[in-house]
């Protein structure tokens, strides 16, 4: 992945296995969010390839990628602020609906059924994230923590197979982080695959099945959490290397 003269991702080769929690870490500017943007189609790859469940994602439209089963949250919360929490989730779940404009206009049985089902499912997802009591509040009026939870609920609303979480614990206190860790584990147990970007090491080490480390757009480690922790290259990337050692 290249932006003009800047090489943002350089021969990064990574894969995520079905049903695992995979963490993507690295110092600021390593290219973590860029990877998310490449996967979700925000950036078009300048070279290389990307595939999901055996089919090529390259060049697909962003909404089609979502429909294929990849959903994400955002590093800085980007909810639909003027919609209620419930509507936020329902909007995302619309991606799999078959009824469109005419169905809505004439209130066809299919349209009515889909509306009913997606509403029930949205409530269920809000419940799962523990924010169903916020269902009727506007996105922008939710407390910060609940906004982050709502982002996860909204992403799950698209019924993804792969869930991309971009720094879900940013700004959380230890208790909230602990709850989030449990939520992510529960999400995995429901059969979703999770790829997450996070800076909080204890969270990552606690829940990930595998950790991928990026530095300056290159992959420098891809291993079990405890092995990554002791990898000299990773330590060097995070703490820097003394001048005489390199």
């Amino acid at each position, binding site marked *: 992945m290249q932006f003009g003269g800047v090489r943002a991702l350089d021969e990064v080769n990574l894969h995520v296995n079905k049903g695992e929690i995979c963490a993507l870490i690295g110092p600021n500017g390593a290219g973590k969010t860029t990877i998310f943007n490449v996967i*979700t189609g*925000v950036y078009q790859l300048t070279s290389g390839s990307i595939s999901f469940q055996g089919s090529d994602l390259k060049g697909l*439209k*962003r*909404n089609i990628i*979502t*429909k294929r089963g990849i*959903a*994400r949250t*955002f590093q800085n919360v*980007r*909810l*639909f*602020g*003027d*919609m*209620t929490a*419930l*509507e936020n989730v*329902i*909007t*995302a779940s*619309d*991606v*799999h*609906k078959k*009824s*469109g*404009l005419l*169905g*809505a*206009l*004439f*209130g066809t049985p299919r*349209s009515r059924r*889909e*509306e009913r089902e997606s509403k029930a499912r949205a409530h269920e997802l809000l419940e799962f994230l523990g924010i169903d009591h916020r*269902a*009727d*509040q*506007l996105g922008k*009026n939710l407390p910060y923590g609940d906004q982050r939870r709502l982002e996860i609920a*909204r*992403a799950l*609303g*698209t019924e993804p197979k792969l869930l991309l979480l971009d720094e879900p614990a940013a700004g959380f206190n230890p208790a909230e982080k602990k709850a989030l860790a449990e939520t992510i584990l529960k999400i995995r147990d429901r059969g979703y695959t999770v790829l997450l970007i996070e800076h909080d090491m204890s969270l990552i080490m606690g829940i990930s099945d595998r950790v991928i480390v990026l530095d300056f757009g290159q992959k420098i480690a891809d291993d079990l959490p405890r092995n990554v922790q002791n990898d000299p290259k990773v330590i060097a990337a995070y703490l820097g290397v003394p001048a005489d050692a390199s």
Partner: protein
Amino acid sequence: MINLRDKGADLWEGWNRPKRITFVFALLVVISLLPFAGNFSFSSFLNTPSASYQDVLVYPIGMFILMALGLNIVVGKSGLLDLGYVAFFAIGAYTDAILTTKTHLNTWQVMPIGIALAMLSGVLLGLPTLRLRGDYLAIVTLGFGEIVRIVILNSSITGGTNGVASIPNPPSVLGQKLDLNHSVNFFWIVLVMILLVIWMIRRFTVRRPGRAWEAIRQDEDVAILMGVPILRYKIWSFSIGAAIGGAAGVIFAAKVLVIAPDMFTFNVSVLILSCVVFGGMGNIWGVVFGATMLAYVPQRIRFITNARELVFGLVLIIVMNLRPDGILPRKKREKLSARKEKSA
């Protein structure tokens, strides 16, 4: 400032079904009797000097409401700034003018053709341009409005500057004549069209299309990442808005009988946009109210001839300063759905 919208909503929500039906029915009766208000002393203050009051109810008031409702889908619901809305009105009007004068089709037969042509031009304009955003889209649509007017001005089939004259009246509906002496009947036809459009918009708003438009308006990048096919829904928004503009145009031509290019200038686009903004973007009732005011007030204050536009402009500026979101701003979706939950 009193919150008119919430006051109204509170009242409405507090009512049970029979009460609501009675209210809507009563309101409809009052509105459909509006054309006769000029005949009675207690309501004669509504009368417009110099223009026939019954004509004013059809054009500009009825037409403005219709067009403002259509434009509201585009600007208010989906957040796409369209500065060339008059083009669709013109396409509808000229379709009626040309087809009814040159073929044996009557107004009602032309209506679906006019709507279809307006929609088609909406799609054709939308396909390449709706990838643009905000200001850029505004400029392109402004250009489109002008192009349509200039094409009309310069082609022979549209009669150039002279326009099209002696457009036939629509055939009678339910035995009611529609001609110069029966403006009341035109008013009722337009009223039915307005009600149909309101019904349609309300249907869309509470279901998938409404959510898609709302998501696009708020953050189109996130909307597409959440799977909303934004280009498709933008084009739908555009073409539905265009269809309503086209329908208004067909009726307009059939009512005024003579149309010319200078009726379809950029000013009309701006005026309709003002109706939407003045009344309250995204709120049907606000838009209806805004269009009524903006169409009616200039006619009502005709007696101050020279200063008329000045006064009108001043009123606009003052109101927009006091109520920057319009007279009746966008519905607070929070309250709305909270109540629905409770009653469900």
